[in-house]
Every structure is written in structure tokens, then in C-alpha cells.
């Protein structure tokens, strides 16, 4: 379970996150929905311990990310926005590097890598250098890298960005599997159909604040429209330009 309580973060003069609180349950897919610049990535960065909040707390399985960052990092698998791979290493080497950094023993690591290659359907390309991989192949390797230590919590920042239809479908199936395995999946998006197709729980963020927290059905009801996009625009408090 991931708990976010009253997070706030300001960079110099820009307030990226004003007041964000929500909970993401295990065995569920929770979507963080919001326009660009709403504070999704900042929230995720605080959660993944790479930056610190000015105030508020973030707990991963009850572990405070500020008090015990190492413990939190072991429990969480993060795929940041536009995550890059090492292009001169092969897909496998990229995954193994992170597995070793996570402290996996050689035997555990190889077993885990084999399972991931199988689950994510990467056997065709994973032993090649990642230079020249398609976006879909890159995302799969980046995802495997985030999952190599078998984390209970998975945080994906706009994972379907730049993927074609087939790759998006494949990724959705993978995310669903993660949920079925009992993991707590938290992912951000600004694409309605995707959220509609995948998520159990939606949190709409706008201008650094939580605007809505509930199920997709509740979101529709709340906005008084069946058009999800319309509902999102209303909730996020954005005006059409």
C-alpha cells in the first residue's frame, strides 16, 4: 500500500505540488490523472526518494520514504518518465545491473531475469545492445529493470508515452498481470481511454492539488457526463485554450 499525506513541494518560485493526499491499495491499479505540469512527476519523484517534499509524508508499505529511503527503495519499482537505458549495454545487461544494485544474489537474479524475459515477451531482442531498440522494446526493458527485485509496489510515470497500438496493448496486459499478482500499481497518464480500460481507482490532479479521488464510475457521475474526457477536464479545472 502506498500512502501520500499532504505533500507539498516548491522549486524556487514554482509550486509543483501544493497539497496532495491519496492512498493506493494492493491488488489494484491506481491512476494519477492530470494535465502536463499538474504535479504527477513531482509526486512520483518524492515517492521514489529522488527528491524530498517540503512538507507531508509518503509511505510505502508503512515505510516513510524520508526516514528510511533504502527500505522504501527495496519495496518499490520505479519507471520514471522518459527513463533512459544504457545504449551500449544489452537489454539483459541493463536489467542485471539494476538487479545487482538491488542486492540480488546471482542465482536469484538469473531466475528473476528469465521470468521477466518470459513475462514481458522480450526473448527476441533482449540480448542485443539497446541502441536502436524500438520505443516498445525500450519500455519493456525499462519495466523489467524496475521489476527486477520483485517489488510489491510499482510506480510507472506515463509508461505508454510514444508507444504504438500493439505496444500499448502489450503494456496494458503486463500492467494487468502485475495487479493480478497482488501488487500495488500506481501509474500516471493523461490518456482517458487508457485509464478507463485499466484502472480501478482514479486520482485527478490539477495545479498541484487532488481534485478527485474515487472510481471511474464515480468520476463520471460526479461530473454529470458519460464523456470521460469532459469529466476529466471539469475535474482538473483546466480551461480549453
Amino acid at each position, binding site marked *: 500500500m502506498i500512502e501520500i499525506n499532504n505533500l507539498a513541494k516548491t522549486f524556487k518560485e514554482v509550486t509543483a505540488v501544493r497539497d496532495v493526499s491519496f492512498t493506493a491499495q494492493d491488488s489494484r491499479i491506481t491512476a494519477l490523472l492530470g494535465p502536463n505540469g499538474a504535479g504527477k512527476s513531482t509526486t512520483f519523484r518524492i515517492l521514489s526518494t529522488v527528491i524530498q517534499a517540503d512538507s507531508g509524508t509518503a509511505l510505502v508499505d508503512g515505510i516513510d520514504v524520508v526516514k528510511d*529511503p533504502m527500505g522504501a527503495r527495496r519495496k518499490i519499482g520505479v519507471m520514471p518518465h522518459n527513463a533512459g537505458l544504457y545504449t551500449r*549495454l544489452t537489454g539483459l545487461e541493463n536489467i542485471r545491473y539494476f538487479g545487482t544494485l538491488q542486492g540480488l544474489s546471482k542465482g536469484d537474479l538469473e531466475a528473476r531475469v528469465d521470468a521477466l524475459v518470459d513475462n514481458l515477451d522480450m526473448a527476441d531482442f533482449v540480448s542485443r545492445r539497446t541502441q536502436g531498440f524500438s520505443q516498445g522494446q525500450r519500455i519493456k526493458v525499462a519495466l523489467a529493470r524496475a521489476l527486477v527485485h520483485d517489488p510489491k509496489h510499482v510506480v510507472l510515470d506515463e509508461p505508454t508515452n510514444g508507444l504504438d497500438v500493439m505496444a500499448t496493448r502489450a503494456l496494458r496486459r503486463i500492467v494487468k498481470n502485475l495487479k493480478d499478482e497482488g501488487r500495488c500499481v500506481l501509474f500516471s497518464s493523461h490518456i482517458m481511454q487508457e485509464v478507463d480500460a485499466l484502472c480501478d481507482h482514479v486520482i485527478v490532479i490539477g495545479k498541484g492539488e487532488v481534485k478527485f479521488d474515487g472510481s471511474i464510475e464515480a468520476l463520471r457521475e460526479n461530473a454529470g457526463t458519460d464523456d470521460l474526457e469532459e469529466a476529466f477536464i471539469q475535474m482538473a479545472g483546466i480551461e480549453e485554450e
Partner: protein
Amino acid sequence: MSFTTVLKKECLDNLRDRRTLLSSFSLAILGPIFFVGIMVFVLERALGESDDPTVFSVIGAQYAPALMAYLERENTKVTRLDPVDDPQTLVTSGQHDLVLIISPDYGDRYEKGNRNTLLLINDSSKLSSQRRHLSNLRGLISNYSRTIGLLRLQLRGVDPDLTRPITTQSVDVASPAARALTILASLPYFLVLAIFMGGFYLAIDTTAGEREHGSLEPLLTQPIPRAQLVLGKIAATSVFSTLSLLVFLTSLNFSIPFVPFERIGMSLEIGLGQLGSILLVCLPLIFFAAALLTVVASFAKSYKEAQTYLTIVIFIPTMPIIIAQFMNVETTNTIMLIPSLAQSTLMTDFIKGEPVANLHITLSMLATTLYATFLSYVAVWLYNRERILG
């Protein structure tokens, strides 16, 4: 340990980048060959110079038979030419390097005791060997002129010494060996440069490059202390700086026998002993270079920016060496406290085969390691800040 994992990964990553690898080791491979080439060239010339005849051409040789006879008795090679309209073209066209012109009224003026002016046409933008011919010929002519002048004074009953109240005599002690040593003194400069060049690209790739490629953020979410991460990167840079130095020393070891030291009466030997000592005193400098490059590259926002910064940084440690060369710095305790200057001074002593105090070696190693450790702290501190993500 995570430190070794990072170190191994960064080394493997950089080893696979063949082009960058070649360019960072190019100085180490070609430097010594180039260096030895210059030494051979300079020494061969220094050795050959003294025996070479002075080469020049003459127009109007028939007007001054006595002068010509004198010149030809000396170590010269004279070509007699027929008069031409524009003698300057003989030189500008490159057919002749040095042309002496004697005018037809030479004999007349000589008889009357008037001054004769001989024209020497040369091109000073050409190689220095031709300048040598010019000065030699000038010397010969002025000798001849002085002898004639003295004879004339004596004929008139005047003591020739009256006309020259003061004379000078200079003694040039610069032997070919001294020239060789001057060139050898610039060797440490190249060695220090090789150390910095060896780690140059890796320092950028592991810091600014990693951030630009977007792999830094996922890396920072791994459960390892930042110190191990940063030290792993600095260690990887050190490995490549060391490799660069080893390549340089190996290349030097194979090319130095081509220098004809024995012909200039020098028993200079850069053997494995010296190379080992050089490597030892350079180890702290390698650590220092890696830490310095990593810190500076961490400030840069992009690969390009880092390249610009580091190009400037490379000049900082090499500057004192160049200045020291001109100022002939002694090996003192204070010098040993300055990284790069300490090592280059010690290396010069090793190469010249001069005795080196153990205190100096220890002092240089301790001081440089201290600076390097401080820089590593700075690097770790930089990576502990949120701003490292850019």
C-alpha cells in the same frame, strides 16, 4: 558491493565505445612516438650541423678573386652564377637559398680603399638551417673584411688594436646532451595530459551523459548509498586514466631506444625502474584527476557543456608545469604540496636520473591524495542534492 557493480558497469560501458576510447588514448599512443621523433630530429641536426659546409651561390665571383679564394678555402660549397636581371627571383623561386652578389666595381673600390658593400639575398621565412648558412657566410666575410682592414692599418703604421678598444668572446656550452635534456623536461607535461585525457570522456559519460540519457533518475532509485555510486564512477574514471598512463609508458618504452643518446655521450636510460617510479608517484594524481573531472562534469547540464568545461579544466593542472619549465623549479617541500606540479617535478628528476628524496615522494603522494579525497567528498555532496537531476 554496489561500488564494484558500478565500477564494472561503467568500465564495460566505456570499453564498448570504441571511437571515444581511441580518441582518449590517442595522446597516450601517439604522444611518445611524436616526442621521440622530435628528439631524434633535433639531435641528428645538432650532431650534423658542425660538419655541414656553408652552401651559397655567387654572382660576380670574377670581380673578387681574392675573396673567393678565401671563401672557398673555408668549409663552403659555392655555386658560381651568371649575372641575371633580377637576382631576387633566384631566391623567391626557390632555386637558390642564399645568393651573394659582388658588383663589377669591387676591384676599383678595393684599390682606392673605399668601402665595398656586398649583397646577401636570403629568405628568412625558410628553415633555420638556411639561416645558419647566412650567419656563417656573414661571419666569413666579416673575418675577411677585418683582416684586410687590419693589414691596411698596419701598412699605414697604426696599431690595429686602437680601432677595437673592447672585444668579446662567448662560449656556448650547450651540447647536444643539454638540448636533449631540454626536450626531455617537457615529457612530464605530456604524461599529466595523458592521465587527464584518459578519464576525460568517462567522467562526462558517467555524469552529465547519464543525466542526458535519462538513466540517472532510475539509478538514483536503487537502494545504494550515493557515496558508493559516486565513488564507483570516480574509480572507473581512475581505471581509464591509469590505462592511458600505462599505454603512454609502454609506448615510450618502445620508442625511446630510437633516440641516439649514446652518440651524444649521454647514458640516459628510461628503463622499467624509472617507469615504475613514475607510475607510483602518479597514482594519487590519477585519483585527483578522476575526482576533479567528475566534480566539474557533474555541474554541467549536458554532455556538450561538460566537454567545454573539462577542456578548460585540463589546462589548469598543465599550466604550472609549463611555467615551471621556464622558471627551472627546484624540488622543494612546498612544490610537493601542489598536485601535478609535484608529480611533474619528480618525474623530471626520475628521467634525468637525479636522486629523489623519499620525503618528497611521500609528501607529494599524501598531499595529492588529500585534495583528491576532498574533491570526492564534493562529488558525493553534489549527488546528494536534488539538483543533480537537472
